[in-house]
């Protein structure tokens, strides 16, 4: 068997080892590759910056723990950005993991009080409600009865100052949702955007990004932040480099590996095809 044929039939474990090397090396020795700012992160930054003072924001972690490495950096960056603004933040989710991720992970590394935000007055964590789209519809109709108690103190939701004038979707100005599947953007659009005209911006994992394109073009979705690379750009824009910036060199190297392997595979294919014919 020639060298090219051997390469075509190489044990896949050597490819796995290459993937480990291409990812671990830039994490251990950061390469400092430049990160050009692109249109998605600029639009996202603008969308968050343009939230008017006094707005009511629904902040929703609609992802599973499996998606934490990709979505958690954009969640924490956006939350910290929102905390610098004068708006009311209501954290609510329809994925069981989302509530746990927000409470157990984000809040353990991050204290909104340091931004001068008072729980119950400037922000509140309502937790999780099962039922996917039906729950999102119930939430739009009657927020207080859908989440009768808050997640952190387990006190009646209606007793908090922030919820005094917020009862239905009509009282909400914008939804900031981070999602990795269903329920997600389709459900938000069907139950909030279409009936009540609530503005929606969505941070999503890369696999969901192609599906956002029609909603972005039609204007139903105001902004979209797809994946780790865009999150790194956003972290640089808000001057808060963190997890995404730390990982973006590894993104570059891993993508370089994929490109090289695909090209090599095709070169080998055409070379052996010519030989066979």
């Amino acid at each position, binding site marked *: 068997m020639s060298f090219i044929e051997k390469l075509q039939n190489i044990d*896949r474990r050597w*490819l*796995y080892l*290459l*993937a480990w090397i291409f990812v671990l090396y830039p994490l251990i020795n950061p390469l400092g*590759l*430049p*990160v*050009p700012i*692109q*249109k998605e992160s600029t639009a996202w930054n603008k969308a968050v910056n343009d939230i008017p003072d006094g707005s009511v924001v629904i902040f929703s972690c609609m992802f599973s*723990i*499996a*998606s*934490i*490495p990709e979505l958690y950096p954009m969640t924490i960056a956006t939350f910290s950005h929102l905390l610098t603004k004068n708006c009311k933040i209501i954290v609510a989710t329809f994925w069981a993991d989302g509530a*746990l991720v927000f*409470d*157990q*992970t984000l809040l353990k590394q991050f204290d909104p009080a340091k931004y001068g935000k008072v729980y119950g007055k400037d922000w509140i964590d309502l937790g999780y*409600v*099962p*039922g996917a789209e*039906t*729950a999102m*519809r*119930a939430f739009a*109709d*009657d927020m207080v*009865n*859908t989440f009768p108690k808050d997640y952190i103190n387990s006190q009646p939701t209606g007793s908090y100052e922030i919820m005094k004038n917020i009862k239905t979707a009509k009282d909400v100005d914008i939804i900031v949702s981070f999602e990795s599947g269903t329920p997600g953007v389709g459900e938000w659009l069907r139950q909030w955007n279409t*009936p009540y005209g609530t503005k929606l911006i969505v941070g999503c994992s*890369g696999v969901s*990004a*192609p*599906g956002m*394109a*029609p909603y*972005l*073009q039609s204007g139903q979705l105001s902004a979209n932040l797809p*994946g780790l*690379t865009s999150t*790194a750009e956003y972290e640089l824009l808000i001057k808060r480099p963190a997890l995404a910036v730390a990982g*973006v060199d590894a*993104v*570059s*190297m*891993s*993508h*370089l*590996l*994929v*490109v090289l*392997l*695909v*090209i*090599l*595979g*095709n070169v080998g*294919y055409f070379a052996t095809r010519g030989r066979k014919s």
Partner: protein
Amino acid sequence: MSNVLRRIEIPIALTIIFTLLQVIPYYFRWESDTKLVDPLDSAAGITSQWVLLVVAWSIFIGVISLIQVHGKTVQKRGKGWYYSIIVLATCIVMTIAGLPFPKELGLGINNPVYTFLFNNVQSPLSATVFATIAFFITSAAYRSFRAKNIEATIVLVAGLLLVMSNAPLFTATVPLIKTIGQWIYDIPNMATNRAVTIGAALGLVALAVRTLLGRERGYLRGGGD
């Protein structure tokens, strides 16, 4: 009596009633001067809240099924029965630790056992299971991604351009890559997904009409009936 209750028409009728209860008030509303709430609308609202309770109580189905399957394996000392013990033990511990009643026992989402298992075992496991796909995708791209014909070549070229446009290494070096990648995302990808979105909407309506006519019974299968 039992034969009457077994009839498939009962669940079909229930489906139709609950579907129409949600749809009709959305399109037929009236408001009077005294601001009396549309009774159908409030019925739909309270039903959507009520249904959430029914959904929530179904959670034990998974636990019971798991215990049934793996319990049988342990009982019969089937293949890999010792792994089934791990499955049963972790499931039972997590279920009991997470139950929010009685309050006095300190169980629930803030229970130390629950939070330890969730943060330090389940989180890494769940993330890693999906992370292994990165390797499989790399191997698949090397072995199968071939420019065998025009269509495959288009997929290959578009795929490579999108891979490169997501990597700052390429977009910083050759900005044109991002421009082309963005065009592929905004135009052909958008066209494909718009067609899929419209098709999905029509599919959902077709499914709903079939369900309302009682012709869609896939969700009612099972049980040997």
